[in-house]
Protein backbone atom coordinates (compact mmCIF):
# COMPACT_ATOMS: atom_id res chain seq x y z
CA UNK A 1 0.00 0.00 0.00
CA UNK A 2 1.42 3.39 -0.97
CA UNK A 3 0.09 6.60 0.51
CA UNK A 4 0.27 9.92 -1.29
CA UNK A 5 1.49 11.72 1.86
CA UNK A 6 4.26 9.81 3.62
CA UNK A 7 3.73 10.20 7.36
CA UNK A 8 6.79 10.52 9.59
CA UNK A 9 5.58 8.46 12.61
CA UNK A 10 5.30 4.68 12.05
CA UNK A 11 2.00 3.92 13.79
CA UNK A 12 -0.60 1.23 13.13
CA UNK A 13 -1.74 1.76 9.55
CA UNK A 14 -5.22 3.24 9.27
CA UNK A 15 -6.23 0.37 7.00
CA UNK A 16 -5.58 -2.15 9.83
CA UNK A 17 -7.83 -0.27 12.22
CA UNK A 18 -10.49 -0.11 9.56
CA UNK A 19 -10.19 -3.84 8.91
CA UNK A 20 -10.54 -4.61 12.63
CA UNK A 21 -13.66 -2.49 12.78
CA UNK A 22 -15.14 -4.27 9.77
CA UNK A 23 -14.26 -7.66 11.33
CA UNK A 24 -16.06 -6.71 14.53
CA UNK A 25 -19.07 -5.39 12.65
CA UNK A 26 -19.32 -8.69 10.80
CA UNK A 27 -19.02 -10.69 14.00
CA UNK A 28 -21.72 -8.57 15.66
CA UNK A 29 -24.06 -8.96 12.70
CA UNK A 30 -23.67 -12.73 12.96
CA UNK A 31 -24.41 -12.82 16.69
CA UNK A 32 -28.03 -11.76 16.20
CA UNK A 33 -30.34 -13.92 14.11
CA UNK A 34 -27.87 -15.78 11.80
CA UNK A 35 -25.93 -17.53 14.58
CA UNK A 36 -29.19 -18.59 16.22
CA UNK A 37 -30.44 -20.06 12.96
CA UNK A 38 -27.23 -22.01 12.38
CA UNK A 39 -27.14 -23.11 16.01
CA UNK A 40 -30.64 -24.55 15.68
CA UNK A 41 -29.76 -26.34 12.45
CA UNK A 42 -26.62 -27.83 13.95
CA UNK A 43 -28.59 -28.95 17.04
CA UNK A 44 -30.84 -30.83 14.67
CA UNK A 45 -27.85 -32.53 13.08
CA UNK A 46 -26.36 -33.37 16.49
CA UNK A 47 -29.57 -35.09 17.51
CA UNK A 48 -29.77 -36.99 14.21
CA UNK A 49 -26.16 -38.16 14.38
CA UNK A 50 -26.68 -39.46 17.92
CA UNK A 51 -29.76 -41.40 16.80
CA UNK A 52 -27.87 -43.14 13.98
CA UNK A 53 -25.04 -44.13 16.31
CA UNK A 54 -22.27 -41.69 15.44
CA UNK A 55 -19.73 -40.87 18.13
CA UNK A 56 -19.78 -37.49 19.87
CA UNK A 57 -16.47 -36.38 18.35
CA UNK A 58 -17.37 -37.71 14.90
CA UNK A 59 -20.55 -35.67 14.99
CA UNK A 60 -18.68 -32.48 15.88
CA UNK A 61 -15.98 -33.16 13.29
CA UNK A 62 -18.68 -33.55 10.64
CA UNK A 63 -20.17 -30.15 11.47
CA UNK A 64 -16.82 -28.37 11.52
CA UNK A 65 -15.29 -30.02 8.45
CA UNK A 66 -18.30 -30.50 6.15
CA UNK A 67 -20.19 -27.41 7.37
CA UNK A 68 -23.14 -27.94 5.07
CA UNK A 69 -26.25 -29.43 6.64
CA UNK A 70 -27.65 -31.40 3.68
CA UNK A 71 -24.27 -33.10 3.14
CA UNK A 72 -23.95 -33.85 6.86
CA UNK A 73 -27.42 -35.40 6.97
CA UNK A 74 -26.75 -37.53 3.90
CA UNK A 75 -23.48 -38.71 5.41
CA UNK A 76 -25.08 -39.61 8.77
CA UNK A 77 -27.86 -41.53 7.06
CA UNK A 78 -25.48 -43.41 4.77
CA UNK A 79 -23.27 -44.21 7.73
CA UNK A 80 -26.25 -45.77 9.45
CA UNK A 81 -26.79 -48.25 6.61
CA UNK A 82 -23.09 -48.90 6.00
CA UNK A 83 -21.26 -47.57 2.94
CA UNK A 84 -17.86 -46.66 1.47
CA UNK A 85 -15.95 -43.40 1.53
CA UNK A 86 -16.21 -42.94 -2.21
CA UNK A 87 -20.00 -43.22 -2.20
CA UNK A 88 -20.31 -40.79 0.72
CA UNK A 89 -18.04 -38.35 -1.06
CA UNK A 90 -20.12 -38.51 -4.24
CA UNK A 91 -23.43 -38.21 -2.39
CA UNK A 92 -22.19 -35.22 -0.39
CA UNK A 93 -20.91 -33.60 -3.58
CA UNK A 94 -24.33 -34.04 -5.18
CA UNK A 95 -25.99 -32.10 -2.36
CA UNK A 96 -23.35 -29.36 -2.36
CA UNK A 97 -23.49 -28.04 -5.93
CA UNK A 98 -25.09 -24.84 -4.60
CA UNK A 99 -21.70 -23.78 -3.26
CA UNK A 100 -20.42 -23.16 -6.77
CA UNK A 101 -22.81 -20.31 -7.65
CA UNK A 102 -22.70 -19.05 -4.06
CA UNK A 103 -18.90 -18.78 -4.20
CA UNK A 104 -19.07 -17.25 -7.67
CA UNK A 105 -21.38 -14.47 -6.46
CA UNK A 106 -19.48 -13.63 -3.26
CA UNK A 107 -15.78 -13.86 -4.20
CA UNK A 108 -15.69 -11.42 -7.14
CA UNK A 109 -17.02 -8.68 -4.83
CA UNK A 110 -13.88 -8.93 -2.70
CA UNK A 111 -10.91 -6.99 -4.15
CA UNK A 112 -8.46 -9.37 -5.85
CA UNK A 113 -5.51 -8.29 -3.65
CA UNK A 114 -7.58 -9.59 -0.68
CA UNK A 115 -8.27 -12.93 -2.24
CA UNK A 116 -4.99 -14.83 -2.67
CA UNK A 117 -4.70 -17.77 -0.24
CA UNK A 118 -7.41 -16.82 2.26
CA UNK A 119 -10.11 -17.22 -0.37
CA UNK A 120 -9.80 -21.00 -0.07
CA UNK A 121 -10.50 -20.75 3.66
CA UNK A 122 -13.25 -18.14 3.20
CA UNK A 123 -14.99 -20.49 0.79
CA UNK A 124 -15.25 -23.02 3.62
CA UNK A 125 -16.99 -20.43 5.81
CA UNK A 126 -19.64 -19.93 3.16
CA UNK A 127 -23.04 -21.25 4.18
CA UNK A 128 -26.46 -20.25 2.94
CA UNK A 129 -26.62 -17.91 5.93
CA UNK A 130 -23.31 -16.16 5.31
CA UNK A 131 -24.07 -16.01 1.59
CA UNK A 132 -27.41 -14.25 2.24
CA UNK A 133 -25.74 -11.69 4.52
CA UNK A 134 -22.73 -11.17 2.23
CA UNK A 135 -24.79 -10.39 -0.86
CA UNK A 136 -27.00 -8.09 1.22
CA UNK A 137 -24.20 -6.19 2.97
CA UNK A 138 -21.33 -6.13 0.44
CA UNK A 139 -22.79 -3.41 -1.79
CA UNK A 140 -23.03 -1.12 1.28
CA UNK A 141 -19.44 -1.82 2.40
CA UNK A 142 -16.21 -0.32 1.09
CA UNK A 143 -14.48 -3.02 -1.03
CA UNK A 144 -11.54 -3.23 1.40
CA UNK A 145 -13.93 -3.86 4.31
CA UNK A 146 -15.59 -6.85 2.70
CA UNK A 147 -12.99 -9.50 3.51
CA UNK A 148 -12.68 -8.66 7.23
CA UNK A 149 -16.47 -8.30 7.49
CA UNK A 150 -16.98 -11.70 5.89
CA UNK A 151 -14.31 -13.30 8.09
CA UNK A 152 -15.84 -11.85 11.27
CA UNK A 153 -19.28 -12.99 10.23
CA UNK A 154 -18.22 -16.38 8.92
CA UNK A 155 -16.00 -17.30 11.86
CA UNK A 156 -18.76 -16.60 14.39
CA UNK A 157 -21.20 -18.73 12.39
CA UNK A 158 -18.64 -21.50 12.01
CA UNK A 159 -17.74 -21.33 15.71
CA UNK A 160 -21.38 -21.73 16.66
CA UNK A 161 -21.69 -25.04 14.82
CA UNK A 162 -19.56 -26.90 17.39
CA UNK A 163 -21.52 -26.07 20.58
CA UNK A 164 -24.75 -26.41 18.56
CA UNK A 165 -23.91 -29.91 17.41
CA UNK A 166 -22.69 -30.90 20.88
CA UNK A 167 -25.86 -29.66 22.58
CA UNK A 168 -28.09 -31.37 20.00
CA UNK A 169 -26.16 -34.63 20.45
CA UNK A 170 -26.41 -34.53 24.24
CA UNK A 171 -30.08 -33.49 24.29
CA UNK A 172 -31.16 -35.97 21.59
CA UNK A 173 -34.55 -37.41 22.47
CA UNK A 174 -35.06 -35.03 25.40
CA UNK A 175 -36.37 -31.97 23.56
CA UNK A 176 -40.19 -31.65 23.39
CA UNK A 177 -41.68 -32.01 19.90
CA UNK A 178 -43.07 -28.47 19.48
CA UNK A 179 -39.70 -26.96 20.38
CA UNK A 180 -37.88 -29.18 17.86
CA UNK A 181 -40.44 -28.08 15.32
CA UNK A 182 -39.63 -24.42 15.94
CA UNK A 183 -35.90 -25.17 15.59
CA UNK A 184 -36.50 -26.83 12.21
CA UNK A 185 -38.68 -23.91 11.15
CA UNK A 186 -36.03 -21.26 11.93
CA UNK A 187 -33.98 -22.01 8.82
CA UNK A 188 -36.59 -21.46 6.06
CA UNK A 189 -38.06 -18.57 8.05
CA UNK A 190 -34.71 -16.79 8.20
CA UNK A 191 -34.26 -16.91 4.42
CA UNK A 192 -37.82 -15.87 3.64
CA UNK A 193 -37.45 -12.85 5.91
CA UNK A 194 -34.12 -11.94 4.34
CA UNK A 195 -35.70 -11.92 0.88
CA UNK A 196 -37.66 -8.82 1.86
CA UNK A 197 -34.35 -6.92 2.10
CA UNK A 198 -33.31 -7.67 -1.48
CA UNK A 199 -33.72 -4.50 -3.54
CA UNK A 200 -32.41 -4.94 -7.14
CA UNK A 201 -35.31 -5.72 -9.48
CA UNK A 202 -33.54 -8.60 -11.28
CA UNK A 203 -32.86 -10.40 -8.00
CA UNK A 204 -36.44 -9.82 -6.80
CA UNK A 205 -37.74 -11.37 -10.00
CA UNK A 206 -35.34 -14.29 -9.51
CA UNK A 207 -36.69 -14.88 -5.98
CA UNK A 208 -40.26 -14.74 -7.29
CA UNK A 209 -39.65 -17.20 -10.16
CA UNK A 210 -37.55 -19.49 -7.98
CA UNK A 211 -40.25 -19.49 -5.30
CA UNK A 212 -42.86 -20.63 -7.83
CA UNK A 213 -40.60 -23.14 -9.59
CA UNK A 214 -39.11 -24.70 -6.43
CA UNK A 215 -42.23 -26.55 -5.25
CA UNK A 216 -43.43 -27.20 -8.83
CA UNK A 217 -40.21 -28.83 -10.01
CA UNK A 218 -40.03 -30.78 -6.75
CA UNK A 219 -43.37 -32.38 -7.57
CA UNK A 220 -42.13 -33.32 -11.04
CA UNK A 221 -38.55 -34.36 -10.32
CA UNK A 222 -37.36 -34.03 -6.69
CA UNK A 223 -33.71 -34.77 -7.50
CA UNK A 224 -33.32 -31.97 -10.03
CA UNK A 225 -35.59 -29.44 -8.34
CA UNK A 226 -32.79 -27.18 -7.09
CA UNK A 227 -30.92 -27.16 -10.37
CA UNK A 228 -34.06 -26.56 -12.43
CA UNK A 229 -35.57 -23.83 -10.29
CA UNK A 230 -32.19 -22.08 -10.15
CA UNK A 231 -31.31 -22.25 -13.83
CA UNK A 232 -34.84 -21.75 -15.20
CA UNK A 233 -36.06 -19.18 -12.67
CA UNK A 234 -32.76 -17.31 -12.62
CA UNK A 235 -32.38 -17.17 -16.40
CA UNK A 236 -36.00 -16.09 -16.81
CA UNK A 237 -35.52 -13.30 -14.26
CA UNK A 238 -32.23 -12.24 -15.82
CA UNK A 239 -33.80 -12.13 -19.31
CA UNK A 240 -36.85 -10.19 -18.18
CA UNK A 241 -34.74 -7.71 -16.22
CA UNK A 242 -32.43 -7.24 -19.19
CA UNK A 243 -35.43 -6.61 -21.44
CA UNK A 244 -36.77 -3.99 -19.00
CA UNK A 245 -33.31 -2.35 -18.77
CA UNK A 246 -33.06 -2.12 -22.56
CA UNK A 247 -36.56 -0.66 -22.85
CA UNK A 248 -35.66 2.01 -20.34
CA UNK A 249 -32.34 2.74 -22.06
CA UNK A 250 -34.01 3.25 -25.43
CA UNK A 251 -36.38 5.87 -24.08
CA UNK A 252 -34.57 9.20 -23.74
Amino acid sequence: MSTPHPSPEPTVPASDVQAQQAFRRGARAALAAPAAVLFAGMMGFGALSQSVGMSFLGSIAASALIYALPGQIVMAEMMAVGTTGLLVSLAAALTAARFLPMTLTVMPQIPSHHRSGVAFFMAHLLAMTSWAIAVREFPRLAPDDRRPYFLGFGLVCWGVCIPGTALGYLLAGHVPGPLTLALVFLNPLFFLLNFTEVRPLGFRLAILFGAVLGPLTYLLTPGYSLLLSGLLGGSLAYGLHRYIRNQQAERP
Partner: protein
Amino acid sequence: MNELILVLAAALGTYSWRFLGVVLSGRIRTDSEFFQWISCVTYAMVAGLVLRIVILPVGLLAQIPLFARLVCIGVALVVMVWPYRPFRGLVPAILVGAVLMVGAGLHFVAPA
Protein backbone atom coordinates in the same frame (compact mmCIF):
# COMPACT_ATOMS: atom_id res chain seq x y z
CA MET B 1 -11.63 -44.63 12.64
CA ASN B 2 -13.92 -45.74 9.84
CA GLU B 3 -16.26 -42.94 10.91
CA LEU B 4 -13.54 -40.34 10.50
CA ILE B 5 -12.81 -41.54 6.97
CA LEU B 6 -16.46 -41.14 6.03
CA VAL B 7 -16.56 -37.65 7.56
CA LEU B 8 -13.46 -36.65 5.64
CA ALA B 9 -14.90 -38.13 2.44
CA ALA B 10 -18.09 -36.09 2.80
CA ALA B 11 -16.05 -32.99 3.64
CA LEU B 12 -14.00 -33.47 0.49
CA GLY B 13 -17.11 -33.90 -1.65
CA THR B 14 -18.58 -30.71 -0.26
CA TYR B 15 -15.40 -28.66 -0.42
CA SER B 16 -14.77 -29.54 -4.07
CA TRP B 17 -17.54 -27.12 -5.13
CA ARG B 18 -16.22 -24.35 -2.93
CA PHE B 19 -12.74 -24.92 -4.34
CA LEU B 20 -14.01 -24.81 -7.92
CA GLY B 21 -15.90 -21.61 -7.10
CA VAL B 22 -12.76 -19.87 -5.81
CA VAL B 23 -10.71 -20.98 -8.83
CA LEU B 24 -13.32 -19.84 -11.34
CA SER B 25 -14.23 -16.61 -9.54
CA GLY B 26 -10.85 -15.07 -10.35
CA ARG B 27 -12.02 -14.21 -13.86
CA ILE B 28 -15.46 -12.86 -13.04
CA ARG B 29 -16.10 -9.13 -12.88
CA THR B 30 -19.00 -7.90 -10.77
CA ASP B 31 -20.09 -5.47 -13.49
CA SER B 32 -20.38 -8.22 -16.09
CA GLU B 33 -23.58 -9.68 -17.47
CA PHE B 34 -22.41 -13.16 -16.39
CA PHE B 35 -22.26 -11.99 -12.77
CA GLN B 36 -25.82 -10.64 -13.04
CA TRP B 37 -27.00 -13.95 -14.46
CA ILE B 38 -25.26 -16.22 -11.95
CA SER B 39 -26.58 -14.02 -9.12
CA CYS B 40 -30.12 -14.41 -10.46
CA VAL B 41 -29.59 -18.18 -10.68
CA THR B 42 -28.38 -18.33 -7.07
CA TYR B 43 -31.29 -16.27 -5.74
CA ALA B 44 -33.80 -18.39 -7.66
CA MET B 45 -32.16 -21.59 -6.37
CA VAL B 46 -32.25 -20.50 -2.73
CA ALA B 47 -35.82 -19.18 -3.06
CA GLY B 48 -36.88 -22.44 -4.70
CA LEU B 49 -35.38 -24.49 -1.88
CA VAL B 50 -36.91 -22.37 0.87
CA LEU B 51 -40.40 -22.37 -0.62
CA ARG B 52 -40.18 -26.11 -1.20
CA ILE B 53 -39.34 -26.63 2.49
CA VAL B 54 -42.32 -24.51 3.55
CA ILE B 55 -44.90 -25.82 1.06
CA LEU B 56 -43.80 -29.46 0.61
CA PRO B 57 -41.84 -30.29 3.78
CA VAL B 58 -40.47 -33.70 4.61
CA GLY B 59 -40.09 -34.77 8.22
CA LEU B 60 -41.31 -32.85 11.26
CA LEU B 61 -42.77 -29.79 9.53
CA ALA B 62 -45.08 -32.05 7.51
CA GLN B 63 -47.06 -32.68 10.71
CA ILE B 64 -48.27 -29.07 10.66
CA PRO B 65 -51.06 -28.25 8.16
CA LEU B 66 -50.13 -26.02 5.23
CA PHE B 67 -52.36 -23.13 6.30
CA ALA B 68 -50.75 -23.05 9.76
CA ARG B 69 -47.27 -22.98 8.22
CA LEU B 70 -48.36 -20.12 5.95
CA VAL B 71 -49.86 -18.19 8.90
CA CYS B 72 -46.56 -18.49 10.82
CA ILE B 73 -44.64 -17.25 7.77
CA GLY B 74 -47.16 -14.50 6.99
CA VAL B 75 -47.21 -13.02 10.49
CA ALA B 76 -43.39 -13.11 10.68
CA LEU B 77 -43.17 -11.34 7.30
CA VAL B 78 -45.56 -8.62 8.51
CA VAL B 79 -43.38 -8.10 11.61
CA MET B 80 -40.31 -7.95 9.36
CA VAL B 81 -41.65 -5.07 7.24
CA TRP B 82 -43.80 -3.46 9.96
CA PRO B 83 -43.16 0.29 9.71
CA TYR B 84 -43.26 1.14 13.44
CA ARG B 85 -40.47 0.45 15.87
CA PRO B 86 -39.65 -1.39 18.07
CA PHE B 87 -41.66 -4.35 16.75
CA ARG B 88 -39.96 -4.75 13.41
CA GLY B 89 -36.87 -6.25 11.86
CA LEU B 90 -35.23 -9.64 11.64
CA VAL B 91 -34.90 -10.66 15.30
CA PRO B 92 -38.48 -9.82 16.40
CA ALA B 93 -39.81 -11.43 13.22
CA ILE B 94 -37.87 -14.66 13.82
CA LEU B 95 -38.98 -14.76 17.47
CA VAL B 96 -42.63 -14.26 16.54
CA GLY B 97 -42.43 -16.94 13.84
CA ALA B 98 -40.75 -19.42 16.19
CA VAL B 99 -43.23 -18.81 19.02
CA LEU B 100 -46.15 -19.26 16.61
CA MET B 101 -44.62 -22.51 15.40
CA VAL B 102 -44.30 -23.79 18.98
CA GLY B 103 -47.99 -22.96 19.38
CA ALA B 104 -48.85 -24.77 16.16
CA GLY B 105 -46.83 -27.75 17.37
CA LEU B 106 -48.70 -27.85 20.70
CA HIS B 107 -52.01 -27.66 18.87
CA PHE B 108 -51.47 -30.01 15.93
CA VAL B 109 -48.91 -32.56 17.09
CA ALA B 110 -50.27 -35.09 19.54
CA PRO B 111 -48.13 -35.12 22.70
CA ALA B 112 -45.96 -38.21 22.81
